[in-house]
C-alpha cells in the first residue's frame, strides 16, 4: 500500500540497513552472564 511504502522510505535508518553488515564486533567483556 503506497502510504506505508512512503513511510518506510522516510526512515533513513532503514535505508542504511537494507544490506546486513557482514561483520559485527563486541568486546569479550560484552556478554552478560559472566563475572
Amino acid at each position, binding site marked *: 500500500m503506497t502510504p506505508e511504502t512512503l513511510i518506510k522510505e522516510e526512515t533513513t535508518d532503514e535505508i542504511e540497513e537494507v544490506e546486513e*553488515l*557482514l*561483520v559485527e*564486533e*563486541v*568486546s*569479550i567483556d560484552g556478554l552478560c552472564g559472566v563475572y
Partner: protein
Amino acid sequence: MSLTKVDAFDASKYWQLSDMVSLRDEEFGALAYHHVNRRLVFLKSRELVDVVRRLGDFESADDAITALVAPDQHDRYVAALATLEKSALISGR
C-alpha cells in the same frame, strides 16, 4: 582527538588472518576472537569465512574476493575486511 586520516584499507595489498586469532565455525558463519586485544567478531556469511580463512593464499585481498565472491558483492566484502583490519584481525605480511 587527532584529525589525521587513518590509511584507508587497501584491498590491492596482501592480507592474511592474524595468528593471534581463533576462528570457530558456526551455523551461519564464524566467531573470531583476537587473543591479544580481546575483540570478538562475528562473521555473518560463509563466504566471508572462506575469504578470511584463505586470504593469505592470494596476492591481494581483491584477488581473494574476486575468486570467492560474486562480483556485485565485491565492495561489500572489501568493507567487511576493512572492519576486520581495524580490530587487527587481519594483517599484512
